[in-house]
């Protein structure tokens, strides 16, 4: 059923349709509307779940770790500092192979404190073992939650999934969303069932110490599973299309890439703006395109190679930084083409939209303009020159 609905409320409804047994969360802007809505659903008996209000994000992640370990589908959501406060639990959940789904309402990291959108939070946890899926719009954010549980709980995967949606832009934006029925969701996502759980009839120890003789294989196993996800995710999205009627690739989405001379690579909501600019420029005969990365972890290197190998000029947008080095997404896109015969002549990277700085259509046009034969590294877009003149001298 189509609804005109705020992103957070839409995601909360998607989570409700997934029937989690335990939800635990701690408030942080801009995640709050999601968990407030879920709390209301529990209070109104529209969702049969235990809602555990905790004293910190560290405990929110720990609570869902514990509930998931009993074999109960569990959910949490956070953002920014909250995700960082969870960080050791986030790594722990992946290491323990617990298929939790979390929404990250992407927000900048302090200092300076800033509640607005960029993607530094989830990008910084890219090495945790979690799958990270980035949504372009509210519909995709909704759909990715069904796909996330389906993927996480697959017997061959058993890894947690983070659905990343740009804070405010998607969490507080309002769009028309096609909300699936409970029957559709139940058909796609069966009840969670695992033998690896806390059960007094079958006592098991979980979270053991692994010394030098065993530790490395546990990390290798997760790495191997990420390779499996690259194969499985397109199948799961194909199954999704059959039931829900919406088609996603799951790994990347190509928009006007085939004959493009210049292609932007990006994650998240900025892709909508880029598509609009592409439509405009195409109408003027400019051959431009977009490669949207949906799955940042696992990183779809092969799909990126296939999409960009014949594109002369590529601009990678990073809504995060790795201060002192190359911005995260761009360095990985560049790595895809190491020692490859077919590759773009130029891969430039642009740092955009940090701390909620608007990325306008003009910003995107500027990037297409700057994307020339000269390769640019960590090119910050939309800086204010007047602010850069300020000095620390007394």
């Amino acid at each position, binding site marked *: 059923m189509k609804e005109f609905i705020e992103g957070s409320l839409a995601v909360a409804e998607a989570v409700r349709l997934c029937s989690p047994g335990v939800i635990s969360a701690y408030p942080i802007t801009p995640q709050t509307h999601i968990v407030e809505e879920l709390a209301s659903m529990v209070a109104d008996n529209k969702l049969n779940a235990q809602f555990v209000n*905790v004293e910190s994000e560290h*405990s929110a992640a720990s609570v869902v770790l*514990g509930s998931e*370990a009993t074999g*109960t589908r569990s959910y949490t959501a956070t953002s920014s500092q909250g995700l960082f406060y969870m960080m050791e*639990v986030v790594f722990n959940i992946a290491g323990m192979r617990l298929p939790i789904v979390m929404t990250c309402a992407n927000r900048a990291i302090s200092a300076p404190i800033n509640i607005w959108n960029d993607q530094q939070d989830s990008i910084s946890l890219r090495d945790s073992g979690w799958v990270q899926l980035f949504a372009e719009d509210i519909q995709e954010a909704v759909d990715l939650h069904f796909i996330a549980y389906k993927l996480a709980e697959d017997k061959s995967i058993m890894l947690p999934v983070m659905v990343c949606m740009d804070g405010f832009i998607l969490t507080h934006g309002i769009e028309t969303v096609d909300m699936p029925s409970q029957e559709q969701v139940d058909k796609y996502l069966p009840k969670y069932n695992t033998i690896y759980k806390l059960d007094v009839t079958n006592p098991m*120890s979980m979270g053991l110490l692994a010394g030098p003789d065993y530790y490395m294989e546990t990390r290798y196993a997760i790495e191997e599973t990420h390779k499996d996800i690259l194969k499985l995710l397109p199948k799961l999205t194909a199954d999704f299309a059959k039931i829900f009627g919406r088609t996603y690739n799951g790994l990347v989405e190509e928009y006007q890439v085939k004959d493009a001379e210049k292609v932007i690579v990006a994650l998240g909501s900025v892709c909508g703006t880029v598509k609009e600019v592409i439509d405009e420029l195409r109408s003027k005969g400019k051959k431009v395109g977009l490669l949207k990365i949906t799955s940042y972890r696992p990183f779809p290197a092969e799909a990126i190679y296939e999409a960009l190998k014949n594109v002369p000029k590529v601009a990678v947008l990073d809504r995060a930084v790795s201060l002192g080095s190359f911005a995260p997404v761009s360095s990985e896109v560049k790595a895809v083409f190491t020692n490859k015969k077919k590759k773009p002549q130029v891969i430039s990277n642009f740092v955009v939209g940090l701390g909620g700085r608007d990325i306008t259509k003009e910003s995107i046009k500027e990037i297409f303009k700057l994307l020339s034969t000269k390769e640019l590294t960590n090119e910050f877009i939309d800086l204010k020159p007047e602010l850069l003149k300020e000095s620390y001298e007394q």
Partner: protein
Amino acid sequence: MSNNLFNAGHTACAGCGQSMAARLVIEASGQNTMVVNNTGCLEVFSTAYPQTAWGVPWIHSLFENAAAVASGVEAGLIYLGKKEGTNIIAQGGDGSTADIGLQALSGMLERGHDILYVCYDNEAYMNTGVQRSGLTPFDTNTTTSPVGARSTGNVRPKKPMPEIANAHGIAYVATASAGFPQDLQRKVKKAMSLKGPKYIQVHVPCPLGWRHESAQTVNVAKLAVETGLYPLIEYENGKLIAVRQIHPKPVEEYLKAQGRFKHLANNPEEIKKIQEVADHNIEKYGLKIKAETEEIKK
């Protein structure tokens, strides 16, 4: 007494008070128990992959989050309709309880989960090499509160964890000791008979960290109680319901049994301060047996 809930063959040190107490606790709680363990000695010596000493469902996540993980285990079991008849124990050492895990523990106590939290108090970070914790007693020589030209050891008294737990208005709070096994098991059973959050703090000597002979664990634990330095007390719904009464022994008897207090041997001034701690406990909790009543005050 069943012995398959916490099996022999683990790698605890000889004379480890914590391993004794952990076995007593799980055996008192029984087979239908799930255990959530903080990182620490107990976790390390009982569950080095591919072995485990535990015959009950057991989970370890991190150093400071057992109380929160246990809260999630409880929520999961309630959702599954499996909570009735299942005991949940969250447990950890003094550092993971009183220092780094205090926030998670406070959250668990405040939210009213039906969980017993057990703090095995060996009065320092033993797993990392005897560093001072919030439950290290006054004047203790540890690796981070070393004795020196201008130091007689740890500068602060123990954090009052039982009172802190009790201030949450929970069902049951008790202290216990590896020196009094039956008392410890009775308290675990009592705790499990009550709904809601429970907190038991067990004094567990560590021969390595306290520097006493491994055969002396029980004697040292008993002396802590008998001097008044580790009062055994019980609160139910906020009210003090019982204390173990003693014929108070001078604190020197306890101090001289351990290397961690060796530096106090010729320092009557410091010993006097420690005697004052014991005297305060004796006064506060009415620990002293009066001539006519030679039994535990109920």
